[in-house]
C-alpha cells in the first residue's frame, strides 16, 4: 500500500520563527517527489513534518493541515509514534545503530512492534529487507558484524533496509546521497525507483541531475532572505520543472543562475 499526502495551508514554526510558510501540495502515491531549493529554504523542515519528526525539537510546531489518505495526521487523537511507523525516514548521514549487528539493525524497527518473532521469520524478514535495499549480496556472509563496519554507501542502504523492513507506506529521504560517492549514489537512485512500486517516496536533494533522473514530481522552494520563511514557488511534473518552468525563479535555479 502507499499513501496520498495532502498539505494545505501548512505553516511550520521553530518557536516564534516561521520557517516554512503556507504550503499547499498533493503528493501522489507510488511516485517520487523531489524537494529542491537553496540551503535554508526549509526542505528538511518540511519533510520532517510528514512523519511528525519536526515536533521532537523543543518549541517546534506545525499549523495547518496535513492528511494521509484523508486522515489528519496532526489530529490530537493521532499518536505520533503510529505515524512514524507508517512513514519511514532515511537521513542525510547514514545512522545505523552502532551497538547492533547488521541483522539487528534491519530488524530494529520491526522488533518495536512485535517482540515475539521466530528466528526463521526474523531471518526471512532481514533477507527480504536487505534484498529490497540491494544490500543482501554484500552482507549475507556477515550479518552478525556491527552495522558500522560497512562503507558509507552500504550503511545508507542498511538504513533504507531498516526503514522498509517495517513495511511503511511512505519513505522520506533527506539528501540520502550527499555523503556518498557516485557509484553508491547510483545504487540508491536505482533503489528509490524500485521503492516507488510499493511506497510513496519523498526525497530532498541538492543534485539537479538526481531530481530529474528519478523523480516524477518536483517541488521548488526558496527563501527571499534569511529570517524570512521558505515558500513553495513551483510544484509540477519533473520534466516541466526542468525544461519548461513557469516561474522565473525556478528557471534561474534549475539552470544554475541562482543569485
Amino acid at each position, binding site marked *: 500500500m502507499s499513501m496520498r499526502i495532502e498539505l494545505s495551508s501548512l505553516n511550520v514554526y521553530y518557536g516564534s520563527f516561521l520557517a516554512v510558510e503556507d504550503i499547499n501540495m498533493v503528493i501522489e502515491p507510488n511516485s517520487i517527489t523531489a524537494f529542491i531549493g537553496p540551503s535554508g529554504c526549509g526542505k528538511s523542515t518540511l519533510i520532517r513534518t510528514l512523519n511528525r519528526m519536526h515536533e521532537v525539537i523543543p518549541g517546534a510546531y506545525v499549523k495547518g493541515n496535513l492528511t494521509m489518505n484523508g486522515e489528519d495526521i496532526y489530529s490530537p487523537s493521532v499518536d505520533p509514534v503510529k505515524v512514524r511507523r507508517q512513514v519511514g525516514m532515511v537521513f542525510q548521514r547514514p545512522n545505523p545503530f552502532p551497538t547492533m549487528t547488521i541483522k539487528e539493525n534491519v530488524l530494529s*524497527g520491526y522488533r*518495536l512492534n512485535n517482540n515475539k518473532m521466530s528466528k526463521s521469520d526474523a531471518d526471512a524478514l532481514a533477507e527480504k529487507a536487505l534484498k529490497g535495499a540491494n544490500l543482501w549480496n554484500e552482507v549475507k556472509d556477515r550479518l552478525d558484524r556491527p552495522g558500522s563496519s560497512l562503507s558509507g554507501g552500504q550503511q545508507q542502504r542498511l538504513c533504507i533496509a531498516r526503514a522498509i523492513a517495517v513495511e511503511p507506506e511512505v519513505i522520506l529521504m533527506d539528501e540520502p546521497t550527499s555523503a556518498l560517492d557516485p557509484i553508491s549514489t547510483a545504487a540508491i537512485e536505482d533503489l528509490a525507483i524500485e521503492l516507488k512500486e510499493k511506497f510513496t517516496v519523498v526525497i530532498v536533494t541538492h543534485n539537479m541531475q538526481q531530481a530529474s533522473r528519478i523523480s516524477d514530481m518536483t517541488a521548488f522552494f526558496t527563501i527571499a532572505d534569511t529570517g524570512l520563511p521558505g515558500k513553495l514557488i513551483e510544484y509540477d511534473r519533473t520534466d516541466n520543472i526542468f525544461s519548461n518552468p513557469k516561474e522565473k525563479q525556478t528557471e534561474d535555479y534549475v539552470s544554475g543562475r541562482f543569485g
Partner: protein
Amino acid sequence: MSSQAPVVKRRIGDLVFSNLAIGSGVAILVILAAVAIFLFAESVPAFLSEQDAAPDGFFAYVAPFLFGTVLASIIALLIATPLAIGIALYISHFAPRRLSQALGYSIDLLAAIPSVVYGLWGMLVLAPFLNPSYLWLNENFGWIPFFEGPVSATGRTMMTVGIVLAIMILPIMAALIREIFLQTPRLHEEAALALGATRWEVIKMAVLPFGKAGIISSAMLGLGRALGETMAVALVLSGSGVITFALLTSTNPNTIAANIALQFPESSGTYTSLLIATGLVLFAITMAINMLARWVISRRSEFSGAN
C-alpha cells in the same frame, strides 16, 4: 643525483608535549610501583613470623574483612547503579531544561560532601531511622538468610553501611552517567524515533547501548570508592572478624579499610605488617576489579559506537 631522506622538522611544541606525555605516563607507573613495593616490603614480616600477629594464619585473619569489604561494596553498587542510571536518564532526557540544570548542580554538590560527614549522618540519623524497617523485613522475610535475626537495636548494621556507601557513590556515578547520556548522538536518537520508537524505546535502542561502556566504567569507579571507603564504614559499623550474610544483626564483618584505620594507631611490630598486608589484599582486589571492567568494556568495543 642522490635521493634524500625527508627532513623531519622538530617543532618545539611537539617536543614539549610529547615529553610531557611520556613523563606523566612514566610517573603513573613509578607511583604504582612504589606503592606496590611499599606494601610488599612492609607486609613481609607478617608472613615470616606469622605466629605472633595472626594465630590462625594470615588468610584466616583477612578473610572476614575481605568478605565484609566485598559485601558492603556489592550492596552499595546494587543500590546505587540503578538509581544512578535513573537519575541520569531523568536529568538528560525527561526533566524540563531548568529543572535538569538545577538537579545537575545539586548532584555535583552532593558529590562534594566529605565521606566523614556521610558516616556521621549514617550513624546518627540514618541508622535509627532505618531500624524499624529492618524489624519489619525480619518479621516478614526472616526466612531469607540476609534478613535473619536477631535484628540490631541500633540499626548500625551491614545493610546501613551498604546504604550509606550507596548514597556516597551515587552522586559521582549519576554525574558521570548523565554526561555519557548527554553525549548520545542525536542522529541515533532520531533514527530510533523515526522508526516509531516511544521515548522509553529510544532509551533502550539508542541511549543505553551507547552508554553501556560508560555505565560500567562509572560503576567500577563507584565500586573502587566503596571498596576503599574507611571513615563512613568505621563510624557506622562496630565490626568484628566474622563471616555472615545476615545484614541486619549487630555482629558484622568489618571492612579491610575500616579495620586498618581502627587498629593501626595501637598496632606495632608484626601486627602493623599484618595490617599492611591486608592493605595489599585490598589493592589487589581493586586492581582486579578494574581490569575486569576493562575487559568487559573491550569485549564488544567493535559495537561501542566509537567508530
